[in-house]
């Protein structure tokens, strides 16, 4: 369902998002001049380092004061200010269609907010929707003028057939060599696991932020009795006698699953955020994300 910006983000939230920016903990190298410090040495006013003068260096950057004290020529290096490349990877697998509201909608709104921040701060925004592979792509774009097109893209995202994090992330990493922040919004239900998939991102030095979106029905299921569970993505069934013990076991398993994901990401320098779709969206953006230091 196509969502207008007003449907994904209300005007008040958009107004408040104008004051915020996505935090990147790594200095990355952009393609264009921007508002973010870069690892590259450039012409900004931000001092970075000294190095010995080499013939051919721009004499404007000689530090004459040191030459006067030490009688040696040093070149002053300054940080380059470049744009930040932000990748929003949205899981559009069938499992994301569950919940009330649907997890996919919640993920779109989340992506809309984060993407709007990026566009506003002149960051380069790339949006990818994936299922068993990358299925839809947007960007790179920068500038607030692209926000309408961005919202339109989000609204056009259609669910895929199945999920393959590995295949999707592998393709993504190969086709997007420019490092940046990779925000993955997904439920991370993949029978092949998430470790190999994230390894593709970490290997290319992406700063990974994983936002796990789950619906309340998944967090606390209310099924009872002998039931057969049908997998939404694969033709898999599981017979289970749902009782207190089974529900307790599920709670433990879910907790272990989320905790395992968080630990894995933390161990590799990534970030993890758990979001339940019953959490008010504004609170998640303006409160939770700010407290977690993801935006400022």
């Amino acid at each position, binding site marked *: 369902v196509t969502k207008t910006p007003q449907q994904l983000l209300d005007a008040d939230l958009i107004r408040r998002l104008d004051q915020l920016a996505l935090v990147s903990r790594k200095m990355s190298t952009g393609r264009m001049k921007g508002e973010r410090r870069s690892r590259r040495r450039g012409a900004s006013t931000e001092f970075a380092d000294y190095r010995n003068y080499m013939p051919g260096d721009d004499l404007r950057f000689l530090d004459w004061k040191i030459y006067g004290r030490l009688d040696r020529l040093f070149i002053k290096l300054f940080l380059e200010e470049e744009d930040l490349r932000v990748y929003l990877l949205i899981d559009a697998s069938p499992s994301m269609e569950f919940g009330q509201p649907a997890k996919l909608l919640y993920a779109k709104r989340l992506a809309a907010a984060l993407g709007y921040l990026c566009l506003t701060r002149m960051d380069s925004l790339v949006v990818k929707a994936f299922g068993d592979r990358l299925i839809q792509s947007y960007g790179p774009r920068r500038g607030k003028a692209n926000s309408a097109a961005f919202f339109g893209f989000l609204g056009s995202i259609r669910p895929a057939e199945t999920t393959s994090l590995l295949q999707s992330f592998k393709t993504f990493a190969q086709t997007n060599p420019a490092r940046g922040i990779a925000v993955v919004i997904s439920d991370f239900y993949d029978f092949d696991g998430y470790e190999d998939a994230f390894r593709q991102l970490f290997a290319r030095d992406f700063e990974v932020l994983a936002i796990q979106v789950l619906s309340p029905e998944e967090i606390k299921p209310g099924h009872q009795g002998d039931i057969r*569970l049908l997998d939404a993505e*694969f033709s898999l069934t599981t017979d289970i006698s749902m*009782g207190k013990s089974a529900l307790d076991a*599920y709670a433990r398993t879910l907790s272990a699953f989320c905790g395992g994901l968080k630990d894995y990401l933390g161990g590799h320098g990534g970030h993890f955020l758990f979001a339940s779709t019953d959490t008010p969206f504004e609170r998640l953006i303006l409160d939770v994300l700010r407290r977690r230091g993801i935006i400022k």
Partner: protein
Amino acid sequence: VSFLNPWAFLFLLTAPLLVLLYFLKLRRPQIRVPSTLLWRKVVEDMRVNAPFQKLKRSLLLLLQLLALLAAILALTRPLLRVRDHAHESLIVLLDNSASMNAVEPHGQTRLQLAQAHIAQIADNLAGDDEMMLIAFNAGARAACGFTANKRLLREAAAGVAPTDCPTEIEPALLLAKSICNSRSHPRILLFSDGAFGETANLELPVDVEYQRVGSPRPNLAITGLDIRRSLDDRSRIEMFAAVENFSDQPFAGNMTVRLDDDVLDTKYFSVGPRETLSQIFEASLPAGGNVEVRFDAADALACDNAAWKVVEPPVRRRVLVVGENTFFIERVLRSSPGVEFKTVAAADYGAGSANDVTTAIWNNVPQPALPPCDNIYLGCFPAVEGLTQGGQIDAPDILDWDNAHPLNRFIDYDNLIVASTVSMTLPPVATAVLRSSQTSLICVFDTAGGSACVVGFDPMRSNWPLLVSFPLFVNNCLSFFEDAQKRRMERNIAVGRSLSVPGARAAPSIRLPNGRTETMKKNPNGEYGWADVRQCGIYRVNLAGGQGYAVVANLFNRRESQLDGTQEPAVGGKKAKPLHAARETNREFWRIGVMILAAILAIEWIVYHRRLFV
């Protein structure tokens, strides 16, 4: 266990179907979830953490199979022989007759075996059951009334003393019958060796349960003893003892005759299997005395190994012959020792003619009288109720005679030829001792004043006076009458009968065969007597004036002496059924099957829901 509807077992064939259905399984509601990734882990974890998970599933199947079995069990309508827990009244009849004194191979008597068995039954009485004990021999008495006190019952059983009496079961059955009518759930248990023969068709309210006691045992018995004074010398006695072997093994030994502890004679004897030996002794006995005949063969029963007889001192017989043509009779009487006689014509017979006469012989006298003495009627009939004469029968054949009867002792009627006789109808009390094919020829019966012997034909119209059997017959009559007189004086009685002392003014004492002395008590007739004649032997009655006499009691009962167990008892006209340990009844217990089914279903429901909520 039996089944009223065994075809229901065919439903067992549905058990495999049930198993199949179970595994094909319940239609589970299908619920779509985003992913089964975590649920699969949950299921794996639960399987790992709950090793009884499979068992739970199997438990449900097992419960369903059990429910099916319970339903099939109920459908088959099973029957079970169960103890009827109704309040039972056990009436135990214990035979303590002479045959129960037979010694079994392991040394116990049959009575002791029965007592042990009854004590066992008493010990096993259920809480609400009661039992009573009736001991019976020639009579019956309650040894213990209804009680649930096991100690009392054991003591009562042990207290039933052995006797030498013959068995009369009918009094015991009548007593039991009268008790049955006032009790709920009565049972009659009979403990006996079966030596009571057939009983009358008593209508008993319940079947008699019979426990045979003892095993076939060899036995030799004195079944008859007769002593009479010699015809030639009244100071001598002749003894006739019948010894019968009731077993399949021969016996041999010595038979000794004693007179008041003095040995008169001893003879060696041997008797083959199933044979009867007639042993004859002669001895000099001018005065009276108590004669004991005993043999020393080792057999199972002791009380029939001896017999006793009281021998009276010789008495003078005074005979009155009435009638004409009494030559042959007078000749016989003249040759008989110790007999005084006189003859009168029938026309001369008057009311006082028979005074001081012991025996009157009426020879072909029309309408003979019946004086208060012993009488012999030859060819004539006294006016006795039940005795009638019919038409004349010419040349009656001699068919049969009772050679065991004292009147026929030493007599052979083979050569007797009778020209004619009259048809005779006997009174109920009479015994025919000689019969033709058409009618009885000679009979004997007791009258108010003595005994009477009626010869239906006129001896003068036969060759009998010329035969040796005629004088023997007359003398046998005289001896029989003498013995009958003694019988009336109750000097020789059968064990089990009561003993009375008519005319005693003060209570006599009596010394029993076991040496104990007791004082006699008055019986319902107002005479002093002794009702407990339960042992064979000599009972000495001591009258108040210092006088006394002896009475002997003998068994002489072939049924009691026959210990080979061939008798098949029948009680109340029906063959007695074996003793049951307890009253049993058929009880259907399909309801139990239904209850089990309900219980299993309840358990299954609980198990199923525990899976859901626990």
